[in-house]
């Protein structure tokens, strides 16, 4: 306990603020709120300049405004929307399978530590194996089908969920478990009233990574496992015919999807695991 205190006391001395912070205060929030837009605007400008000044041929890189137009038009009822929705649906299916199997399995494995130790190597091994490397294997099992794409994505996502949920339980605050036991809770009550809740924070980390993983694998599978729909399919098809505007629009759509899913999970997590970090 004493060591960290000593080290914080020994933190490097920082010079006192110069100037008059009081006069700067009113302007600060606005500037701070604008900060997140600096990066995107900067990228947009560079992109536009590069195309305008002819550093990259328009056949390889369309102008950003053209691309965004293609994206907006495509998503507003164009063919891009259909592919977008197909990818969303596949990702959601894969994610749901991973979550519905993975969280209970992880929590059970985590509360029986011996059981987890006996399968730990398998989980760690396949978690470390790039799921895309397993695509041919899944092709043999499921054939060239929609099921295949969902199955491989679900598999990749599942391991992440299991791992995080199991560790969430294993790292549960021992004192809360003791508190429940001393109040007379039996094993089942400790499990449902304490362990599951304690594991939620870690489970959410797992679910959030899992949905990203599912999206990655779905897109890859759509590119290479004879799909006729989906964002991955659209990206590779428009690249084949050098329809770059469409390709970039589809790439951006995939980015929008990934980002939106991430934000959605962060918000849900904050709602459900409201005690996190407090």
């Amino acid at each position, binding site marked *: 306990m004493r060591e960290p205190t000593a080290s914080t006391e020994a933190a490097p001395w920082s010079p006192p603020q110069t100037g008059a912070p009081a006069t700067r205060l009113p302007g600060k929030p606005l500037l701070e709120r604008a900060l997140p837009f600096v990066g995107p605007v900067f990228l947009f400008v560079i992109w536009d300049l590069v195309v305008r000044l002819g550093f990259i041929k328009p056949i390889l890189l369309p102008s950003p405004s053209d691309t965004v137009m293609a994206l907006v038009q495509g998503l507003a009822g164009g063919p891009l929307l259909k592919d977008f929705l197909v990818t969303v649906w596949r990702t959601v299916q894969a994610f749901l399978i991973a979550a519905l199997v993975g969280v209970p399995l992880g929590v059970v494995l985590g509360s029986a530590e011996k059981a987890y130790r006996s399968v730990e190597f398998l989980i760690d091994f396949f978690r470390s194996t790039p799921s895309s490397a397993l695509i041919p294997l899944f092709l043999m099992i499921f054939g060239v089908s929609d099921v295949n794409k969902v199955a491989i994505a679900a598999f990749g996502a599942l391991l992440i969920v299991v791992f995080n949920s199991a560790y969430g339980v294993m790292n549960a605050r021992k004192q809360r478990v*003791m508190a429940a*036991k*001393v*109040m007379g809770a039996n094993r089942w009550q400790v499990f449902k*009233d304490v362990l599951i809740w304690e594991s939620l924070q870690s489970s959410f980390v797992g679910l959030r990574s899992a949905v990203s993983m599912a999206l990655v694998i779905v897109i890859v599978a759509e590119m290479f496992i004879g799909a006729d729909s989906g964002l991955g399919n659209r990206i590779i098809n428009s690249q084949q015919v050098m329809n770059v505007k469409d390709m970039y629009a589809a790439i951006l759509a995939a980015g929008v999807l990934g980002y939106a899913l991430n934000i959605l999970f962060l918000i849900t997590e904050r709602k459900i695991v409201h005690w996190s970090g*407090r």
Partner: protein
Amino acid sequence: MSAVLNARMVADVPVAPFVSGPAGTQITIRGLTKYFAGWPLYENFDLDIPKHKIVSVFGPNGCGKSTLINMIAGLVPIDAGEILFDGKSLKETKIGYVFQNYREALFPWMRTIDNIAYPLKLEGKSKAQVDRRMAELVASFDVKFDLNRYPYELSGGQQQTASIMRSLAPNPEVLFLDEPFSALDFEMTLFIREKLQEVFMKTGTTMVLVSHDLEEAVYLADQVLLLTKRPTKVAEILTYSDPRPRTVATLSEPSFIAAKKRSLEIFQREVRR
């Protein structure tokens, strides 16, 4: 095969007869043995904890004050010995326990009120019974903060008050308190100390308090249990019988000062030994 052999070996060892404590004993500890990393922490430790009394446990660092109450409360397994509550086993006894670290004792996913009601729900009490008991507790603790908030929205002192209410909710026979004040500021310490004394005067619940603050240990206690260095034995049991309610004035009474001085002497003797 081996099971049969083991059974014979055990049969050859003479079993020490269980000697019950004097009348009015709540907790009887006999032959308690606990090893830590191969070294004895407690060896053949006997103790009687009286009923309807507050016992403060005080002793040198590392002598296992908290371990002692954790073993009695069943949180830490014992290597040998027997602990009985009024002749009953721990399973048949209702106990309450207050942790030093309230932050990790309350459940942050439940509202404070549900935390306090949790042990009652475990007992399968009906909603009406739970509500009645909660109203009683709120009245007796004179709660001024919003129990519908989550624990992390409360101050440290409020959280510890909630933990104590939770531990008292099922009307336990014995209440264990493991340094309940050491994470609190002085104002809150005083407040909770008074509340505990009030509850004790009202209900007579047997309390076992581990403390590292001698003044606080003596102030609340009917008996101060002073322990030796490990392997831990009872150095002395000091009786302090000033009438309750004890107040700030008690702190300057000659009897209080004498009890504190005597405790300190025993403590220092044991530390130097």
